[in-house]
Every structure is written in C-alpha cells, then in structure tokens.
C-alpha cells in the first residue's frame, strides 16, 4: 500500500503523516455535538475499534478467566500463579501478534513506519545490546508480575469487602458510565505519573529505561523499570475509593497492560488486505519517544495543550519545541 498518499518520507527514511494530531472533541468549547457524535461512533473513533476491543476482552477475562470471590478471598499460591500465567499468555498472544506481523514477517514492509530504521540489534542502551531481548525481559520479568500483583491485591480486597464494591443489578447505569470513563482516567493518571518520572532524578534512574526505545516496537510498550511499572499500574487503585465492580479494575489494568502494544507499534496504520487500514493512534506517543519532552499524555484529554507541551506533528510545533529545548540547553551550557 502506498503510504505517500497519507504522509511523506524524508531523506533519513522516516515517515510522517500529513494529517496533524487532533485531540478528541470531548472538551471542545464551544461544544460541537456533531463532531463529538462522529468521534464517538466512527471507525477509528472512541468506541471503535480499540476501546470496544479492550472492553470486550475485559468482560471475557472477568467472566471466564478470573477466579470467583470464594477463591480470591484467601491468598493462596494456586490462583495467584494461575493469574500470573494467564496474564503472561494474554501479553504473549496480543503483543506477539503485533510483533509477528509488523516486525518478524514485516508484512507491510516499512509502509506507515515512522522510523526508517528497524529496532536495534547492537545498542548498549539495551540488555544484551538487543532492543527486542531487553523488551521481552522487562515485559515478562517485571510488567506482567506487577500487573498481576495489582490484580491479586484488588481481587483479594474486593473479596474481603475492603473495596466499595457495588452490583450491576442495582447500579447498571452508573457502572456503565464509569466503565466508559476508563480510558479517560487511564490517560489522566498516565499524564500525572509521566510528568513525575520526567523529573530529572527519576528520569535518570527510572524512566530512561523506557526511553531507550527511541525507535519503539510493540514490546517496547511495557519495557520499563519496575518502579515505573508500580506507578503505571497504580491507576487501578482509584477503585479503593470509587464504588465500582471488579470488572472496572480488571478493565483498567487490562487497558494499561495491552494499550502500549498499539501506541508503541512504530507504525501509523496496520495494513489489512489490499486497501484497508487500521489506525494505531500512536503518532503522538511516537513523537514523545523521539523528542522526549512533548506529548506526555495521549490525545484524549488536552493536558499537553493546556500545559504547553503539545506537538501535533506540524513544523510550527516542531519549532516551538526546539525553542523550549534551546532555552533549556542554554541554561545547561551556562553551568
């Protein structure tokens, strides 16, 4: 598929989309109901395809693959190890499919690939000098266990009445509305945590591990320092105080666990068949990995716009970002 219809490739081989990044029209003022409705229901909008996929996956995981309350009331190795294995398999299958198609089979070549190069196989930034090996170790050695630990803790707390759990039979509308807010809370929490770990001491010792992936692939998504995993998955702790059902923290955790495959895919679109594509909505986060100090959140809530760190991919925003960097560099070079 000809990606030059949708963007341009520079001399270095990097591809960028023609269309600039736009925020979801949730907080537009004045509110634009038609645009909002289109965004809600269109393909590549709020519901389709990704949030619907994550919501349905969460329901299936909760219903069929999560032990009942009578089991989770007591901490025991059996169900904890089961959850660890379950989560490892989910990550392996989901991330594995992304990686297999885009990086092993290279099914669409470098069409829609942001970075002209393929991930490093000889870079001292990574464990064993290989990006993919490093990413796998950090994903399965830290991310999956931390995700599981949060889930075990929340299930145990819920089973023992330590969470304000309410039933779907009594509060269906409230619980559904709360479920729809899952991506918004995830984005808001991510922004807060993300700004915090860009504070130089935390960046140096913690977040730099993730930022070694300047040319990310799907498995880069969860390739973080363990401290970052603890902060990253802590978004589920909101349900210690917000009345909800177990489905809500399971969905929150599953979204945090699987979402990064898409946002770190390194491709703007996945080509399906001869002429169809699926947007990954990952350009904003790709620019963050490339330039380090823009787009701390995804483009759901305009936090970066409010705080002056938004890069929409245009030359104007590039210039603004370079000026911010130059001002910071000038301070450093005076020392």
């Amino acid at each position, binding site marked *: 598929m000809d990606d030059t219809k949708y963007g341009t490739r520079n*001399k*270095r081989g990097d591809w960028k989309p023609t269309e600039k990044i736009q925020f979801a029209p949730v907080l537009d003022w004045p509110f634009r109901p038609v645009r909002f409705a289109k965004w809600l229901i269109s393909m590549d909008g709020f519901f389709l395809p990704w949030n619907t996929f994550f919501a349905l996956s969460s329901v299936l995981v909760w219903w069929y693959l999560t032990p009942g309350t009578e089991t989770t009331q007591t901490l025991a190795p059996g169900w904890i190890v089961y959850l660890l294995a379950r989560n490892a398999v989910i990550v392996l299958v989901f991330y594995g499919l992304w990686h297999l198609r885009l990086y092993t089979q290279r099914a669409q070549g470098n069409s829609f690939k942001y970075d002209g190069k393929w991930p490093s196989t000889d*870079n*001292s*930034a990574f464990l064993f000098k290989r990006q993919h090996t490093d990413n796998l170790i950090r994903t399965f050695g830290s991310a999956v266990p931390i995700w599981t630990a949060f889930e075990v803790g929340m299930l145990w707390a819920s089973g023992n009445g330590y969470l304000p759990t309410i039933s779907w039979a009594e509060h269906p509308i409230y619980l559904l509305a709360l479920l729809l807010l899952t991506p918004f809370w995830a984005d808001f929490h991510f922004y807060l945590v993300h700004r915090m770990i860009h504070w130089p001491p935390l960046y140096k010792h913690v977040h730099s591990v993730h*930022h*070694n992936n*300047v*040319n990310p692939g799907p498995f880069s998504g969860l390739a973080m320092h363990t401290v970052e995993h603890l902060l990253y998955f802590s978004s589920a702790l909101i349900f210690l105080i917000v009345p909800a059902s177990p489905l809500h923290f399971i969905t929150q955790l599953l979204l945090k666990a699987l979402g990064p495959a898409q946002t770190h895919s390194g491709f703007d679109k996945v080509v399906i068949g001869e002429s169809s594509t699926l947007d990954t909505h990952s350009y904003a986060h790709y620019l963050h990995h*490339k*330039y*380090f*100090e823009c787009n701390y959140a995804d483009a759901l809530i305009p936090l970066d716009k409010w705080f002056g760190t938004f890069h929409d991919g245009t030359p104007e925003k590039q210039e603004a970002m*370079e000026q911010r*960097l130059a001002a*910071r*560099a000038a301070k*450093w*070079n005076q020392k």
Partner: protein
Amino acid sequence: MAWLEVCAASAIDEEDVMRFDQGDKTFAVYRGMDDDYYATDGLCSHEAVHLADGLVMDGLIECPKHNGRFDYRTGVAKGAPVCINLRTYPVKVEDGKVLISL
C-alpha cells in the same frame, strides 16, 4: 597552532563522520555536503557514546544511542535528550589531507 593529520580528505564520504583518537581523547571529524570539514568532541554529551557511529544529515549528527542531535558545525545541542553542547575544533584541508587543531 599545532595541526594533527587525521586522514585523507577523500577518506570521509560526503555527509559522513570519522572517529579520530588522540591520546586518551576521542574526536569526531565530519564532511558536509559542500566539501566542508568540521570536528567536535567524539563522545555524546549525554551518555558518552561515540558519535562516529551516528547518522550525519543536513548539518546534524544524530547520536546512535538515543537519537540526540547536534549541529556539528557549531556543536550546539539540537534535540533532546542532549542539552550540553559539544566542543568544536578548527579543521583545514591541505594537500588532500584533513588536519585538526586540538
């Protein structure tokens, strides 16, 4: 000003870079698009990686480790995560050889 010979001018391709070690110091020597030559510190000011392994393009050297960018003509840091400029050194070409003054 003492000049040290680095290499033959033709040994560096257009828009390319070569590593040059002198004693315990290391430098990066560049050839631009117009047969102009430049030299900077050889290690990235961010994490001490050899810039000679990086990509030269449009007046910039891109560090191979984190893609931090410098203008190799001035040494100025141009892209995160690098903030600290590189030191630059005088370079000239005489009799087909690249010379650097340290």
